[in-house]
């Protein structure tokens, strides 16, 4: 069954989206830009045209019928708001087959809940993207359901790498991903703001400071990912003896940056766990 999907190359790979909001749009755009899927092979459904126009602009097909998406695509990504997902799954359940691979991006809706809402033996995965998927630099994790094999998982991973980094994890890591990387985007923004304000304090105009701060984050992240060294190593490499960086780092440590950051990830993770229990 997985083979049929894996054999579908870019020319024929079809992907459906139920829900056409920002995240669905980001994933679709990534797939098209990376050449993984052709626009005309993407079908998206939504209750109104408000979001569908973005899909139409990309050259995708659109519909108001959720069932139609499942009838025309075997791989379907559910990108609705979490609280309406159960109703949507109930609506499409009658047309779900053993051939389908259904993917949910909803926060807080577990694999077991998804499996309960769908026919037995349905192949379900959870995908947790983060906002930078919209610029194809997402940090994405996937968790697979009971009936999903490695080939379907690899297929999905290969497709989602169009949107950034994508790795499979046990479902238990999903809330931690939220705390680290979902919410992490906001933490990084706060850090970037603060870097820039430090520069403004020292005499640099604000907009220039903000651009340089963001580029510094981007460049450092790129070095860490490409060179594969431990961040502590890169940090130490930048700190010449008695130089500027070590003085700055000392001030950072005195301010308790590390503990604050750990607390931030912890608080966001705990809240994600709380919310998914509700």
């Amino acid at each position, binding site marked *: 069954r997985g083979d049929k999907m894996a054999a579908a190359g870019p020319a024929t790979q079809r992907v459906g989206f139920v829900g056409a909001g920002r995240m669905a749009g980001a994933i679709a755009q990534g797939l098209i830009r990376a050449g993984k899927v052709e626009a005309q092979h993407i079908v998206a459904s939504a209750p109104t045209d408000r979001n569908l126009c973005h899909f139409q602009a990309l050259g995708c097909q659109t519909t108001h019928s959720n069932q139609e998406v499942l009838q025309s695509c075997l791989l379907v990504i559910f990108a609705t708001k979490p609280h309406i997902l159960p109703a949507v799954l109930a609506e499409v359940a009658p047309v779900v087959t053993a051939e389908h691979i259904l993917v949910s991006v909803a926060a807080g809706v577990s694999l077991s809940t998804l499996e309960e809402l769908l026919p037995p033996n349905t192949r379900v995965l959870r995908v947790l993207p983060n906002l930078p998927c919209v610029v194809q630099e997402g940090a994405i994790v996937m968790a697979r359901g009971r009936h999903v094999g490695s080939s379907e998982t690899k297929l999905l991973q290969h497709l989602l790498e169009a949107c950034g980094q994508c790795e499979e994890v046990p479902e238990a890591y999903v809330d931690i991903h939220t705390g680290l990387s979902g919410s992490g985007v906001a933490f990084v923004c706060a850090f970037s*703001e*603060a870097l820039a*304000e430090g520069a*403004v*304090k*020292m*005499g*640099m*105009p*604000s907009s220039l400071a903000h651009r340089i701060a963001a580029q510094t984050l981007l460049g450092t992240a790129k070095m860490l990912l490409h060179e594969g060294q431990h961040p502590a190593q890169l940090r130490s490499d930048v700190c010449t003896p008695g130089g500027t960086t070590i003085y700055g780092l000392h001030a950072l440590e005195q*301010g308790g940056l590390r503990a604050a950051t750990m607390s931030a990830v912890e608080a966001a993770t705990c809240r994600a766990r709380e919310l998914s229990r509700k």
Partner: protein
Amino acid sequence: MSVGIIGAGQLASAWRREAALYPVGSQDNSQLSGNEPAHGVGAQEDGCEPDTQQQGDSEAQRCPVSGREIGADVQARHIVVSCAAGVTISSVEKKLMAFQPAPKVIRCMTNTPVVVREGATVYATGTHALVEDGQLLEQLMSSVGFCTEVEEDLIDAVTGLSGSGPAYAFMALDALADGGVKMGLPRRLAVQLGAQALLGAAKMLLDSEQHPCQLKDNVCSPGGATIHALHFLESGGFRSLLINAVEASCIRTRELQSMADQEKISPAALKKTLLDRVKLESPTVSTLTPSSPGKLLTRSLALGGKKD
């Protein structure tokens, strides 16, 4: 249409003063003179102990007016608006349902700057209140500031933010003035300038589409005085203190509310303030017409209240 106010606390006085001075509910306020209110406003003293101090003060006692006392007079056409902190719509409805099958209840949370027509008010409509009842209240409360409808479960958060918010601002203003005095300004001038600075900033933000941090950046010239000052604020954890304050006020409101719901604590011991209850008589909204001052006098006399 006339409006009755039960209670003689801060909100009631603000309301009486402002509603008498500024016509409300008309399509075009500029057409009505300042002396002729569109609606009669009556305020009665009904044996309720007035609040003597601001919201949240430990001396405040819960007004003994309760559903039991006014319940018998409430008719189907009345809209009962409760401004009592921590009192849920369902508890008001429950009390009134002893007298009316479908009492129209709206819950309202406002704040003290209504006294200068810069209040922040939210309201949530009860089971039997109609859309036009909510709109009527919104029209009335918009005459004393900002007013919008919310879901009832947000009212605690609103209390934490804009209910208590003026207190946070007063504290900040006192400290800002201290800073001014320390650096050589006479006290009165320092208070005036501090208050005007906050007022101006608030106005800029409300008038702007920009993020407050963008507006902040616009004030901070590179290497300048302001950014130096902001660094101190950040070092002191200014942002998190404010977040903590809003959270604490919201949580405390919920605690008080659940204590009240359980009715285990006597009302007098509860440290919450019942501002007043605004009792509105409502025909349909479309029949709002200016009433003459004579009618105003008649109504308030009939209630046995004092003339303004």
